[in-house]
């Protein structure tokens, strides 16, 4: 079944979402670059799961609500979202900023979650390990720094964005700044409470992540009890694009081992 696009209003915010496939729910939280188009990665997962990909409030086709100030607001929004869609036994996943939001959700209430996958998550700070400055990079630098294999960057840059896509990019950058300019892409209090996470958690990093260095992987693993860490070889900050099949397989096996 091809994926569907729709809108749902949660906490007063008109939110765009894409859904595809059937099976256990897999709620995927996108990163700073938004989720405007359905990825082959989600198509693969939709063979096995009902994949639900909302655009966060403030991003892309979703409204910017007055209440949005930080990732804590988004964590509570997604708890409302899970209730509104009547989801249970949710396989929650998030990449980068989305991984940060997922972790914020889980420390608050993981009772509706079955598993959690944090892909190159933001959200904590490791002293002395510098993250990439995503707000200082040009569009070209950003695209190159996302990947290990420059061919992915070249392909992404080959087609210039339409005006609507440019506007979306600006909107996404604004929302990302709102959530993560200072302190830069982390919540100084989150690490203190990650021990509350009881849902089985998989942490995935690319070994050549230039945005959030792979050293963040072991740091997260240490903070989340019983979590599992997978490092993907020859992969940058966007495993869902650069290693889509491998990541889908790793996630599927992780989830299936927990039925």
């Amino acid at each position, binding site marked *: 079944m091809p994926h569907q696009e729709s809108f749902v209003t949660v906490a007063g915010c008109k939110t765009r979402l894409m859904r595809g496939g059937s099976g256990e729910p897999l709620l995927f939280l996108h990163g700073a670059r938004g989720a405007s188009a359905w990825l082959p990665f989600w198509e693969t997962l939709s063979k096995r799961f009902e994949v639900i990909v909302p655009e966060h409030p403030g991003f892309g086709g979703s409204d910017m609500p007055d209440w949005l100030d930080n990732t804590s607001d988004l964590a509570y929004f997604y708890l409302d979202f899970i209730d509104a869609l009547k989801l249970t036994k949710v396989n929650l996943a998030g990449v980068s900023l989305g991984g940060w939001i997922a972790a914020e959700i889980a420390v608050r209430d993981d009772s509706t979650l079955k598993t959690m996958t944090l892909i190159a998550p933001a959200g904590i700070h490791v002293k002395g390990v510098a993250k990439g400055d995503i707000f200082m990079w040009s569009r070209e630098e950003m695209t190159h720094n996302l990947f290990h294999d420059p061919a992915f960057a070249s392909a992404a840059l080959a087609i210039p964005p339409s005006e609507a896509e440019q506007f979306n990019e600006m909107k996404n950058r604004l929302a990302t700044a*709102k959530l993560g*300019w200072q302190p830069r892409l982390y919540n100084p209090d989150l690490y203190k409470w990650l021990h509350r996470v009881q849902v089985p958690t998989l942490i995935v990093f690319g070994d050549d992540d230039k945005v959030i260095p792979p050293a963040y992987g072991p740091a997260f693993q240490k903070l989340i009890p019983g979590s599992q860490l997978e490092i993907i070889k020859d992969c940058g900050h966007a495993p869902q694009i650069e290693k889509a099949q491998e990541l889908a397989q790793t996630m599927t096996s992780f989830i299936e081992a927990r039925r």
Partner: protein
Amino acid sequence: MKFFFFHLMPYAALDPDYDQKYNSAWVTLPNSYYDPKIGHELYNRYLDELEYADTVGFDGICVNEHHSNAYGMMPIPGVMAGALARRTKNCKIAVLGRALPLLNNPLTVAEEFAMLDTITGGRLIAGFVRGIGAEYHAWGANPAESHDRFHEAHDLIIQGWTRPGPFAFEGKYYHFNYVNVWPRPYQQPHPPVWIPSQGSRETIEWAAHPDRKYTYLQTFSPVQALARYMQMYRETADRYGWQAGPENVGWAIPTYCAETDEIAKREAKAHIEFFFNKLLRMPQEMLLPPGYLSLASMQGVMAAKRTLSGGVQTIDDLMEKAIFLCGSPATLREKLEQYQAQIGFGYLLPTMQFGTLPHELVKKSTDLFANEVIPHFRGKADKQPARVSA
């Protein structure tokens, strides 16, 4: 027309080849490029130039705020204003910072400005700005909160100056149980407020609101853009039901005056090109971080800005767009008279030192301007452009 001598205090000794290694003179340019001994010379020289302006008949002098850069060495403009407060006797002193959204506690500005106003017996002009985009990278302040913080900090400062203290302030970003500003400003109800900007619609709409009627200053923009923004200010005032006058709009522009047009151009060339091509150099991401402008005005200003920070510019480009005023006293008189009549500004803020322009030339240009340009406008009423709609 009133004339304010504007200084940026650049680090004029900057190695011009820095841009072979670094893409900007801001934020990421290592401060090893700065020599404290040269800094000592420059600061004192620049203060001399500002003090001199007071003695030759400028109505005011202006200091400025920028952080972590070679373009302007006044991260704390109040230090400069404090040094000038006692050495100058007649002129107004305009502090064309402070970048309010960068502050954790805006009451420091309420205090600082009130102190300066009191020492000078009411010669202070209070500038409120948001800083340029680079400041948000340098300071870690969130550009997405820039507008909201600016408005709230402004409200806090004005209330601190005008409401009897102590009172409680309950904002989104700033909370105080006891707002109680000592000293109160010398000028009552408060010093005049100037709003320098590079042309954001939000800022103009806000400055022209009848609760404020602040003087809007257009900084470093081609004359065409200047005309457009000042027209926008007047139309906004019309819409609010009041009529803006020359005292509501001012123009800040690098200016050089010499014996003849030819000499002026020859003497200014290297220095003004250094200013625009070396000191103002920065990538778009540094200049316009997300949220610094609303999404709506982002696209328009990005296009206009390319003329300011993109590509190498020659003195001819700059003079053609009148983003730089350069010529003999007769030429400057003629141009200023023409622009004033067309655009209707009541304040001119010539930046008489720019880039690497050395002291002797600053002094020569300042003298000529003070003796042969300023007097031409004394006693003449400022013109107002014809109102499009009645």
